[in-house]
């Protein structure tokens, strides 16, 4: 037998057959299938078992909440006829001083099996959250004392544990109690939780315009049109594929193999800015990238002087960073409430002013006496003369952060401030204080990360709370400035307990003035939530935090 010839023939035939098959024209794509793509796979389709942005991206396809936040930074009713503040008795305070929120579900709100959405569907998640075994990943119900049915089976009454100005936190995702009750009770009898139910893996009963029908982990998810949703969407199906490599993700949308792509980093879409066939939608996600000064854990002595902190803010051309590294797709925040209705226009906005920065540093006693390009202490009280002004900036190994710190390093170098970049693996960043890690347990002079999810309202935060300073006794504290400002603490506490909107706005104004005057936080850029889609998609409105808020209206051009 001519083994050699047979082998060569077999190889040739195989290669040619595969080539012919693979290069043959593909079947026509179905235009009624919306092809979405994202770099991360959702960790769960049950919203109570994830806190991941990628998972939340698709939840509005199949599970609607009573209200949603629009791109105009306003709440809009979804499952309810009207928002609680717009209804008499919608937001009240009971004799015990607890905030009580009432809302009524729309009559035409239906689950995909035709069952009406009722109060029982909102009571059920609260019950599950407190069953001791279901172990939700979210803390939705932390401030909720009780949830009850009101006068009708469609009225929901939520009572918070105390005064809660955030009425909107009473609107969580309902779960189809009628379908889940029986398997849930069986699971509980077996000491198992909601997470063990098939529905948690693939929620095949939903109340949105689509219903999940298939999830091949690591590859794709499919959602088909819900027959009970009105109006019926143009698209029959939404197919979501996962492409972990960003270059491939970009090529996919450029090549027309995806209709809409989510979760891009700003730097990744810069090459797409000139593409006329694509629309790049940018809006804020919930955070602001910023530099947080370490003012309490063996900081560089220069940072205790507000003039030095101000000089650093003046020495960084933040708009240039936004324009060059983020393609101008976002803006520079000047307070936690920048670009929201709650921004205090009266605060001093620190712009790029290297000359002014150098003058401030000179005034503060930091001068470059030896001419090496780095300033040193000269007559600064409590600081040994000659101590160089070199600061470490700690951040995660996220490329855009590294690029931004590197850019700032160059800019600050021009005014005589030396910056050393220290990067941390994401998994080792936010570990408890006792485990080290850059966020809580590090000694870096400045931390670059994002934080504060406040733009949806004037919400309180404990990022600067005195009782949140990380320590061995409080290993998970989140005040990474390691500094206690009692005046600021008091303002944040007041914000947490004041319900009157005008008073709250006044408090927020004071907080912004305090933060601006003391420069304990330098906003670098508002984190953009970027969605890229083809121009053949029409009537598309991307909602803040809810890209698919209006998908029932989307169509495709012929």
């Amino acid at each position, binding site marked *: 037998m001519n083994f*050699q010839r047979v082998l060569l023939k077999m190889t040739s035939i195989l290669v040619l057959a*595969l080539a012919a098959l693979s290069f043959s024209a593909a*079947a026509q794509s179905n235009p009624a299938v919306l092809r979405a793509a994202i770099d991360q796979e959702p960790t769960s389709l049950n919203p109570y078992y994830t806190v991941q942005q990628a998972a939340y991206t698709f939840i509005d396809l199949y599970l609607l909440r009573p209200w949603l936040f629009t791109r105009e930074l306003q709440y809009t009713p979804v499952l309810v006829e009207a928002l609680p503040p717009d209804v008499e008795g919608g937001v009240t305070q009971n004799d015990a001083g607890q905030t009580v929120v009432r809302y009524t579900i729309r009559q035409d709100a239906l689950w995909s099996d035709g069952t009406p959405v009722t109060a029982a569907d909102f009571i059920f998640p609260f019950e599950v959250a407190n069953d*001791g075994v279901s172990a939700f990943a979210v*803390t939705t119900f932390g401030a909720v004392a009780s949830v009850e049915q009101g006068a009708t089976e469609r009225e929901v009454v939520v009572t918070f544990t105390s005064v809660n100005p955030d009425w909107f936190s009473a609107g969580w995702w309902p779960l189809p109690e009628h379908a889940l009750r029986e398997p849930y009770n069986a699971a509980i009898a077996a000491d198992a939780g909601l997470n063990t139910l098939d529905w948690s893996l693939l929620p095949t009963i939903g109340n949105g315009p689509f219903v999940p029908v298939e999830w091949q982990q690591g590859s794709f998810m499919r959602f088909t049109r819900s027959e009970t949703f009105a109006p019926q969407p143009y698209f029959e199906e939404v197919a979501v594929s996962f492409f972990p490599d960003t*270059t491939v993700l970009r090529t996919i949308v450029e*090549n027309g193999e995806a209709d809409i792509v989510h979760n891009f980093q700003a730097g990744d879409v810069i090459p797409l800015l000139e593409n006329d066939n694509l629309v790049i939608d940018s809006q804020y996600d919930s955070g602001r990238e910023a530099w947080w000064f370490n003012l309490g854990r063996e900081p560089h002595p220069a940072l205790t002087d507000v003039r030095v902190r101000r000089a650093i803010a003046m020495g960084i051309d933040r708009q240039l960073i936004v324009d060059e590294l983020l393609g101008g797709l976002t803006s520079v925040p000047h307070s936690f409430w920048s670009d929201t209705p709650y921004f205090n226009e009266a605060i001093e906005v620190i712009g790029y002013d290297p000359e002014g920065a150098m003058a401030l540093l000179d005034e503060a006693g930091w001068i470059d006496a030896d001419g090496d390009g780095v300033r040193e202490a000269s007559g600064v009280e409590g600081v040994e003369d000659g101590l160089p002004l070199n600061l470490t900036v700690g951040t995660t190994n996220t490329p855009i952060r590294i690029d931004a710190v590197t850019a700032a390093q160059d800019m600050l170098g021009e005014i005589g401030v030396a910056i050393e970049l220290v990067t941390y693996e994401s998994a080792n960043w936010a570990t408890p204080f006792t*485990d080290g890690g850059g966020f809580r347990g590090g000694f870096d002079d400045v931390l670059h990360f994002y934080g504060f*999810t406040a733009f949806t309202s004037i919400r309180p935060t404990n990022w600067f709370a005195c009782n949140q300073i990380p320590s061995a006794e409080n290993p998970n*504290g989140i005040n990474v400035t390691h500094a206690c400002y009692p005046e600021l603490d008091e303002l944040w506490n007041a914000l947490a307990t004041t319900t009157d909107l005008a008073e709250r706005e006044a408090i927020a104004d004071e907080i912004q003035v305090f933060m601006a005057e003391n420069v304990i936080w330098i906003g670098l850029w508002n984190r953009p939530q970027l969605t890229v889609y083809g121009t053949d998609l029409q009537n598309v409105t991307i909602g803040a935090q809810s890209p698919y808020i209006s998908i029932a209206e989307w169509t495709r051009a012929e």
Partner: protein
Amino acid sequence: MTRYILRRLLEGVVLLFIVSFILFALAYSFGDPVAVLTDGSAPPTGEEADRLRRALGLDQPLPRQYLYWLIGNDWTLIDADGDGDTDEGIYGQRRGILRGDLGTSLITRQPTADRIADRLPNSLLLMIPSYILVLMITLGIGIIAARRPGSRLDTVLTTLAQVGYALPIFFICLALIYVFAVQFRRWGLPHLPIAGMVDLSQPRTPGNLIRHLVLPVASLTIVQLAGYVRFVRASILDVIGQEYIRTARSKGLPERRVIGLHVLKPAALPLITLVGLDLPSLLGGAVVTETIFAYPGMGLLFLDSLNAGDFPVVMGILILVSSAVIVAQLVTDLAYVWLDPRVSLQGGAR
């Protein structure tokens, strides 16, 4: 023979225990899964983080976590509600790897075995064709080299194989995408899909799947080829210089019979070792290729799980591959003895 196999299996079990503890300690040190669960950059607040850690069993010391992973925790009371105290009458539900329970994913809360079972066939679908192609092309090039060593064709083929070896796999993947998916499309030619396993806007036919397999299989084949070609070519040239080959030729045997009968079999024997050592990698998938082509195989599962600090899944994959390595080595040794009568199980040649 039976005694030898039993001894090797016993050694394998001991080795697996040692390897599993080392891997467990390494996997444990990857970082804080809770930080990753909450997207890392927005660190969870104290109570939330503590509750999540307790709920996931991450508050236990390393030796106890390893013990539970090994033999389960259904014999001990657990802290089911995550309040810091064990709950009366509530026992753990894990049976441990020794009783076939690989644990539950920290991220998706699914059994690790299910996650692996979902991905393993996909990886095999990718790896086996590329492996078959590698072996066939390798033998083809080896034969050409044997027939005309140092010829222009031999030089061109081995050089091309070396080029493939010298290029990083991600470059090969992206270059193939650029040419066959992007440029072919721009030129109006039939083109291949960029990535994924199927195009969901088209009927899910075998053709749809194969079109998506071509580029990743080609990438893997190109990158694996050079090592095999070098090995087989050297082996064939070694055999071809033996006296018995000269004898066969001097007897007037046709060249194709000399190659097919007297050269290929002895030259292919060392290949068994190479194949035996590489076979377990079929189970591990191809991390870079699967990531770039968004191919849902074991490599991508491993990488995702590693990034997410999902160490039950990481451990499941590592133990599976480790076990496969031990079994493959045993099978390789046995195959060698079977194919080459000069080799004995007692060690050394007869």
